[in-house]
């Protein structure tokens, strides 16, 4: 598949460097020789159809999965070669916003945001309180600090999870499908938050999503993956101009194109007649 550019372009020194990454799960090849550079301090989007392996990519970057071959370097460190304590040290510099929010259900909103601070620092309760209130204020949920996660809407839960993800002021934040199932207002709030946080905290952001328009509106650079390969990458403007059929189908949301609606199967008529024949025989 032709890419917009042969090699990923380093806008600034990359914070995440992925080279020749391959990953298989239960005999299914998810990635096959992917190369990516995530520039420092920028918002980088990874897009692709459902099941393309976008979440898997985040897990590989975070060290929750190990690649079959190839390398994933974060902040200059080869993730798969790190010992468990070293990996945990690296993860202190990362934040991740899960699709399901992943809030601890037996803790209040306040305690959820305070959780990583309590775990990794010896700050006094009053200092933790000030920090948590600052993070909650940033996501507009200071007033919801005493609520339990079960009392929050989907959008509010994402924002609490975002406040928790930035609690330790990470160098990099990974967003896993942050807009899925969000109403237009929540989506706009989240978009604004991601952009604001990236600019004010100078964080590197990796945004995994298949919401094309919204993601492209705040991204500095876009990677599109399909069938385990990187089919295109570039700035949003470059991506919108590409003539590649796969990219055009994805970006414009066309039903017809190289990406088939039907899962691979045998001849439809033949299968139907087989069923009819089976019924007659019995």
């Amino acid at each position, binding site marked *: 598949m032709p890419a917009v550019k042969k090699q990923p372009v380093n806008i600034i020194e990359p914070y995440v460097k992925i080279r020749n990454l391959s990953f298989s799960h239960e005999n299914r090849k998810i990635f096959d020789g992917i190369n990516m550079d995530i520039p420092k301090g920028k918002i980088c989007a990874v897009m692709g159809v459902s099941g393309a392996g976008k979440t898997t990519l985040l897990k590989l970057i*975070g060290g929750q999965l190990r690649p079959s071959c190839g390398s994933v370097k974060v902040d200059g460190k080869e993730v798969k070669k790190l010992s468990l304590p070293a990996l945990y040290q690296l993860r202190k510099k990362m934040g991740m916003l899960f699709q399901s929010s*992943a809030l601890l259900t037996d803790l209040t909103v306040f305690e959820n945001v305070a959780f990583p601070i309590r775990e990794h620092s010896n700050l006094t309760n009053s200092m933790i309180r000030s920090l948590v209130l600052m993070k909650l204020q940033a996501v507009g949920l200071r007033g919801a600090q005493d609520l339990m996660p079960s009392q929050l809407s989907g959008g509010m839960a994402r924002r609490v999870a975002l406040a928790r993800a930035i609690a330790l002021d990470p160098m990099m934040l990974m967003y896993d499908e942050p807009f899925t199932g969000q109403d237009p207002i929540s989506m706009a709030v989240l978009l604004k938050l991601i952009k604001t946080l990236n600019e004010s905290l100078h964080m590197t952001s990796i945004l995994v999503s298949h919401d094309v328009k919204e993601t492209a509106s705040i991204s500095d650079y876009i990677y599109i993956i399909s069938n385990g390969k990187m089919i295109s990458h570039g700035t949003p403007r470059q991506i919108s101009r590409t003539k590649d059929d796969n990219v055009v189908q994805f970006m414009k949301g066309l039903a017809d194109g190289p990406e088939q609606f039907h899962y691979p199967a045998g001849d439809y008529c033949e299968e139907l007649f087989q069923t009819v024949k089976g019924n007659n025989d019995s």
Partner: protein
Amino acid sequence: MKQIQQIGQQSIKSVERIGRASLFLFYIFKSGVDCIIRFRLVISQIYYVGVLSVLIVSISGFFVGMVLALQGYHVLSQFGQESTLGVMVASAILMELGPVVTALLFAGRAGSALTAEIGLMKTTDQLAGLEMMAVDPIKRIIAPRFFAGVISVPLLTIIFSSLAVFGGYFVGVGLLGVDDGAFWSQIQSKIDFNDDLLNGLLKSFVFGVIVSWLAVFEGYDTVPTSSGISHATTRTVVHSAIAILAVDFILTALML
């Protein structure tokens, strides 16, 4: 041929799972130091798995003691040995029924709850979320629950056994007219602290380790779906029951 292949695959999977469970237990014990440092985490779990099990254990203990006294009296009275009812009830309870029934109740009440809780945490990405916050879920979530179970089961066994003996006393002395002094003095003279009491407690400790281990492992290893959690919870109760009874036989054979 295909069936042999399936049996082989199933066997390999079982051995692999046992290996994973053993490694998991090793990591839990390695996290023991962290649990001692942050003992409040264990204490809060003792409340959930232990204190909240006190009611069911107490009621069951009392009724088991009463039934044992009724049955015992029926048999012993045929030989004119009603006065030995106390020692019969106490020895059966302290060595066998106390540790075994408490562990079975614990597996049903707290073990299944532990599996479901951890399984749901896995399904809703809470465990993955902890990992990404650089918090080891085994140290923070699994080990405190495991050690809480290990501490709770012997304590619950003491409560069960005490109430069972009291239940036996209530039926034997209170309702059936066995002599009060004979009931207690027979227990005092025939029940040995080391052979009966400590061995019973040792059994309950071993059962505590087994049930807690199975419960936390099944939760951690669950397939992250609703049916996965359901199967894991069932497996915890079934495997715990079989393991308790099998290990009880081995321990009894060693202790006699």
